[in-house]
């Protein structure tokens, strides 16, 4: 999927408000303009995002598989060494499909941060209480978004209501609380309550497996960029598209380890795939929808300031006003704080030169993150186009028209004023 010009000219120019972007997409590019600075920004922030993501997926799987239904999970953000050492299926020597050239365990920068944090070498508990740690609350907020928004495609959500799932969950719940008459009694009285918790944990596992893939992808992109291997933003996007396809068939499952025994709540044999059950719902829920911005904005629901349809929600990262508000979710304050710790030096230098330098570095990197997520969304759009529609250099004008209709319908979602697509086209949006 290289940049081409000849067949794109077969169609008359687009009349969409974002005609320029549509035509760039048709030529194989990204929603983000192809400039060297854009490329530097997005790769740098991908790397800064991937390190906390490494922690997120490990801890998420720890929560879904080990912590499970613990009623007082005070230590759920302390994944065991087993999970920190757990080999990522896509990096390290043992990987069958090796995406990143690095080692399989937790990233060394992550381990260093977990030990030292910002305030120095202290016991883990003190770090945790001082909140000098990776902010897992962001990951849980993403999971909540996926849980709450339903009808986003894929079979995952419907499966959670099925009888098979209920049986699996029932077995696991009973095994987990064996010998605990209080919780078992509670389960008898309110079966739906614990079942709902198990559904939540299934989404936790879903998200963990999703991010297990994205982290090595981002690490590899950073390494390739450091070697000078990307010719521009479209090349970076292509890498993402190839990555999406390569992992599309990864199974999504949920297994729980209770006293050493493995219970399959969602077995692999159900056939849930990474692309349909994890990636696409995640993009829809976290990039587009999430929940109304918290912090300094108030909404009058009776005046219709919050849409009554969930599908109309427009509070994701692609629409966010990235000022830190201190809470989890979007705007990604907690994630921005995490990314701050792992910025590559060339990005830090860039931020010190613009706006207020160190004082508003969080806002600057948040905006860079927004740009990078536009690139990821472009990759998803291009991947969907490749999967469900026609190649960009297809000679048939009917096919090209279908492609264009698809791109335009995707761009329709960014017409509303809150969308940042217009802003990321310019370089003075910082």
């Amino acid at each position, binding site marked *: 999927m290289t940049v081409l010009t000849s067949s794109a000219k077969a169609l008359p120019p687009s009349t969409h408000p974002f005609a320029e972007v549509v035509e760039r997409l048709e030529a194989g590019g990204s929603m983000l303009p192809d400039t060297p600075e854009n490329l530097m920004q997005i790769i740098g922030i991908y790397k800064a995002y991937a390190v906390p993501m490494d922690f997120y997926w490990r801890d998420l799987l720890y929560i879904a598989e080990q912590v499970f239904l613990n009623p007082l999970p005070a230590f759920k953000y302390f994944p065991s060494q087993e999970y920190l050492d757990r080999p990522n299926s896509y990096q390290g020597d043992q990987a069958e499909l090796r995406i990143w050239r690095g080692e399989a365990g937790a990233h060394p920068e992550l381990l260093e941060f977990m030990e030292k944090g910002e305030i120095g070498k202290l016991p883990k508990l003190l770090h945790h209480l001082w909140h000098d740690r990776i902010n897992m609350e962001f990951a849980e907020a993403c999971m909540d978004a996926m849980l709450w928004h339903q009808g986003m495609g894929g079979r995952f959500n419907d499966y959670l209501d099925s009888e098979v799932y209920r049986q699996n969950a029932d077995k696991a719940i009973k095994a987990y609380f064996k010998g605990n008459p209080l919780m078992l009694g509670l389960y008898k009285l309110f079966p739906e309550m614990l079942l709902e918790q198990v559904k939540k944990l299934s989404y936790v596992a879903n998200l963990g497996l999703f991010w297990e893939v994205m982290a090595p992808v981002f690490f590899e992109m950073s390494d390739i960029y450091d070697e000078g291997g990307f010719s521009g933003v479209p090349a970076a996007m292509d890498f993402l598209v190839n990555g999406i396809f390569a992992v599309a068939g990864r199974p999504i499952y949920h297994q729980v380890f209770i006293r050493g025994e493995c219970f399959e709540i969602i077995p692999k044999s159900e056939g849930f795939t990474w692309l349909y059950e994890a990636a696409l719902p995640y993009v829809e829920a976290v990039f587009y929808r999430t929940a109304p911005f918290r912090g*300094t*904005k108030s909404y009058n629901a009776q005046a219709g300031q919050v849409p009554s349809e969930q599908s109309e929600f427009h509070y994701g990262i692609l629409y966010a006003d990235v*000022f*830190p508000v201190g809470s989890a979710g979007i705007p990604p304050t907690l994630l921005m704080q995490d990314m701050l710790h792992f910025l590559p030096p060339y990005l830090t230098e860039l931020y010190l030169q613009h*706006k*207020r330098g160190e*004082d*508003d570095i969080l*806002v600057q990197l948040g905006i860079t993150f927004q740009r990078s997520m536009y690139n990821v969304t472009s990759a998803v759009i291009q991947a969907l186009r490749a999967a469900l529609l026609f190649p960009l250099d297809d000679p048939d004008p009917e096919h090209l028209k279908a492609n264009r209709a698809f791109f335009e319908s995707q761009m329709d979602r960014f017409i509303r004023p809150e969308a940042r697509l217009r*802003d990321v086209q310019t370089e003075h949006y910082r």
Partner: protein
Amino acid sequence: MGLTALITLLSVAESSPEEPRGRLLYGLLLAADFGLTGAFLARNALLFVLAFEITLIPTTLLLAIWGGERRATAAIRYLMYGAVSGVALLAGVLALGLLNTNGFSFAYDDLAQVSLPPGSQRWIMGLLLLAFGLKMPVLPLHGWQPLAYSQASTPVAMQLSGVVSKLGAYGLLRFAVGMMGDTWAAWAPAIAVLGMVSALYGALNAIAQTDMRRLVAYSSLGHMGLLMLAISAASPLSLQGAMAQILAHGLITSLLFCLVGMIETRTGTTEIAGLSGLLNPCRGLPFTSGLFLLALMASAGVPGQAGFVAEMVIYQGSFTLYPIPTLGCLLASGLTAVYAVRLFNRVGFGRLDNALADYSRTSWQERVPALSLSMLVIVAGLWPNLLLGWSEGATASLALTHPSPSVLVAALPSAAVPQAAALLELS
């Protein structure tokens, strides 16, 4: 006096170094300072009048040359009102001196014992009221004030509102209360009501404003109404309160104008609708907005700051004499809280618009004037003796020359008579 010097110093500090015709600006500010100092220091009425007139010229020029778009209109209006004020003052003072049956003199000491033919008292008081009422200003003589204060550039506004308006109050204290006490006592009930109306008018108008400068201008008008109430009551306590209010209001209003000026320099606008979320620590003006909050609280009379001290003493001092106007002014004080909160809610809190937030932080150098004024306001609030106490002797003696109890009693509701008598005995 000290206030004059301080405000002049700070207004000079506040003005931007790239101000066009900077040297002229400083020269004119200092000339105005000269006039004001002369007025406050004078012991002779004619000298006072001279200084009063002198102040008019540099301030008009200051207003006309630097400031907003409509500054020419503002300056002309200011000049006309000021000219009328000057002429009235001249006539009044001349009359005082010439018609003085005790002998021809303009020295304050002599004029303090002035006795005038009864018929002339009324029109002399009228002239003096006109002169000083135009200067303070109070309703209905305030026509020049909102426009002038809102169009003036920051240092000029600071000086105008902080010091020049106090000239009117000082004049009232010195001439009307000091020299024509009986007439004042006779007119005082009406003047108290005038003060109340002025206070309420200022506060209500401030609530309706969409521009920060105009809002502060109307707020200043409201506070002048309070001052008028205090002076009209002329009991020892209320006069102390008047002194405190003179100082406190001078500090607070200057501070407000200073901060509004800083906000305008950074954001480019004083429209309330155009600003939001300035307290944002990342990209807003947190320091300036923090001081702005303090200044608004001081203006509203929140305890712990200078405004409370002044208002408290004024109300205590005036309530027994004029309960209704005092209550009206209390209401106006409550309304100041309304516009202060509304203003800050819109401007300081809320979400900062990233598209417009392209300004840099204020430097420590820029913050010095506002910071020093704020410090004074807070210290004065926590240590009221900074505001009161200095002039106790003078105000007590002023109150003493208050008219005979008979006139006073006639002006009182019956229940308050014993209290008033007790007050007089105390002083």
